[in-house]
């Protein structure tokens, strides 16, 4: 299959290994991976701030870039939800609505694509350690992704997965919310990270790097010893 990657702007610059891990996983499964050079940002920051006209300009650009893709794969549940759920809403009643819906229909979140589109759960990955999984809210509640990442992690040799009490509680990132209301955002991160620490895990795994930026940001300031990993990085390791 020809898989077209959407690599969100912050993964491109801050977490390139996540994107490369996705490339490795897909190529090992025999798929062709492409990355259209002209992609930028999904437009979620202005969209979530209420500036929909501006968001539409950015979104229209991505829709044009991904028009010919067979499937679009996003390494972030949040940006994936933007494509899949919010593009149709953003262009509702607009001339580009059909194109927006077409993009939405072929967009997949990484773990859902592996488990529910390709039917793969065992990638032959090996990763030694004790880990807990964080459900990103957009992946969980906009896209309904809950079991797929766990199914994949269950087959990783050497990995011990321990569920935390607050797995489904928001980490407090929320995009611009994290800097508009930093105190509330940080209080939420603290609750999340305390729950992570209670599991005595060495790693926090998630299918959303934006949450990991928040969780990692708090852990690195306050704890230091727990590492954050994207699901793809774990699945790519041998």
């Amino acid at each position, binding site marked *: 299959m020809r898989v077209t990657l959407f690599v969100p702007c912050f993964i491109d610059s801050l977490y390139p290994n996540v*994107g490369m891990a996705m490339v490795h996983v897909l190529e090992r499964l025999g798929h062709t991976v492409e990355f259209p050079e002209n992609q930028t940002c999904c*437009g979620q920051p202005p969209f979530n701030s209420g500036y929909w006209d501006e968001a539409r300009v*950015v979104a229209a650009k991505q829709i044009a870039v991904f028009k010919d893709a067979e499937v679009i794969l996003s390494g972030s549940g949040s940006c994936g939800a933007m494509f899949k759920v919010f593009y149709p809403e953003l262009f509702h009643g607009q001339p580009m609505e059909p194109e927006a819906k077409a993009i939405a229909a072929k967009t997949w979140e990484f773990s859902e694509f592996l488990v529910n589109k390709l039917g793969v759960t065992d990638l032959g990955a090996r990763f030694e350690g004790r880990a807990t999984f964080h459900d990103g*809210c957009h992946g969980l509640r906009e896209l309904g992704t809950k079991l797929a990442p766990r199914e994949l992690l269950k087959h990783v040799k050497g990995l011990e997965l321990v569920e935390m009490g607050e797995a489904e509680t928001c980490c407090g990132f929320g995009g611009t919310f994290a800097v508009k209301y*930093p105190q509330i955002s940080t209080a939420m991160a603290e609750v999340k990270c305390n729950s992570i620490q209670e599991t005595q895990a060495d790693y926090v795994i998630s299918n959303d790097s934006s949450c990991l930026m928040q969780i*990692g940001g708090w852990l690195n300031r306050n704890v230091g010893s727990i590492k954050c990993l994207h699901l793809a990085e774990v699945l790519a390791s041998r």
Partner: protein
Amino acid sequence: MTALADPPRQQFQVDANRTSSDSPRRAAVRRALSNYKTARDRTGATFTDWKSARAAAATIKHEAVNHLDQYLEEFEQKFTARGGKVFWASDSKQARDYILNLAEAKGVRSIVKSKAMTGEEIHLNQALLEKGYGVVESDLGEYIQQLKGEAPYHFVFPCMHLRRDEISDLFEKELGTAKTDSPEELTMIARRVLRRAYIEADMGISGGNFIVADTGMISITENEGNARLTVGLPKIHVALIGIEKVVPRLGDLALFLPMLATAGTGQHLTGYNSMYGGPRQPGEIDGPEEFHVVFLDNHRTRLLADPEQRDALHCIRCGACLNVCPIFKNIGGHTYGTTYQGPIGSVITPHFRGLEDWKHLSGASSLCGACTETCPVGIDIHHHLLHNRRNAAAQKPAAGEQLLWKAFTFLMKRPALYRLATKFAPLGSLLHPLIARTMVDPVRSWTDTREFPAAPLHSFRAQFKAHQRAQTLASNLGGTQ
């Protein structure tokens, strides 16, 4: 409660900063709500199919809200036929004036009141006290808040933020009772005061959980029996109810009563579920001589006129969205500065009290969607927060912010320029530690409390290109062998 001397947004910021760092209070609220969650999950599991029950409830409320005129008039007709009186109040002043005039005309001296958020909404107690009427809240939590001079912290659990010893101290100070650590003793102290209030009162004021159109009755659910006494003992009963509380048929309560109990407190059914259909009828031995229902609009019709957010009128005020909200758990109820706290309050308050003044509540959300997921009547709560943000930006864009997004758009629709900009990320990362957490740090609101990740030397783009070149090279070499 703090007076709104500052604009609501500033007050919110100040209060949120204070409460979100109050670790003991946050932990106590979290503990209480974790017990709620356990109970709710257990009770919810006894529904054959909670998901279908929610869908059915949403359908019924949709039908009711989209035919409000018809169902409210049906209620009025049935209710007045039994001697009840209905007053339609367009705004809070009309509602207050009706109740004040009634009290004056009937020579009322003291009033007992059961839980009614509509009363909070129109500042009824304040108006009654100003006119010299004694008014006592009879719900235990509301009574405690009244003694404390504070608004309810949570519209279902009014004093959930208080510890037992704080309540004991309050009683000692206000009522002169001895300190105690026993919930039973605290309850008995309140009961002694309240029993006297029921007997002395010549007017009882209540809210109402449901308006039942086809029988012309109001339904009140409660756990303490205080509403029954408030309604039953005084000679005049006034029920102040929001117009959206209507359900078409009595049979609908077979779904809504257990649903409200489950979502609200985790109970199968609330302790007391009563139906009231009018004043004392000939031959009856108890009940009020007069029964007035005040239908409160107070901008609910403004919400009704918005087809996108109309479903917010489905709300049965169970409080479930507050109980699962990570924002509520960390900032607490008073920080919102509204009658209705939490996610649903952040959705409806801008409609009731003005978008410009209350849009910040829609901004103060990570849009995690836990509220929408839990709402028993299927209100699209967190997307409405998003809609409020959109409406606010369209109504009055913030100059600085709009400029920021215009610049953002300028960059993001020019891939070449964007690629150029990302090339500076590693350099930025290298230099950032020099200014991190200082006045000139552009991401200080992040770095004050969290580490900012460093950008690696090679972006994904660069790495992917190199990877593709290596692959091409390998396949070319493979081809020449």
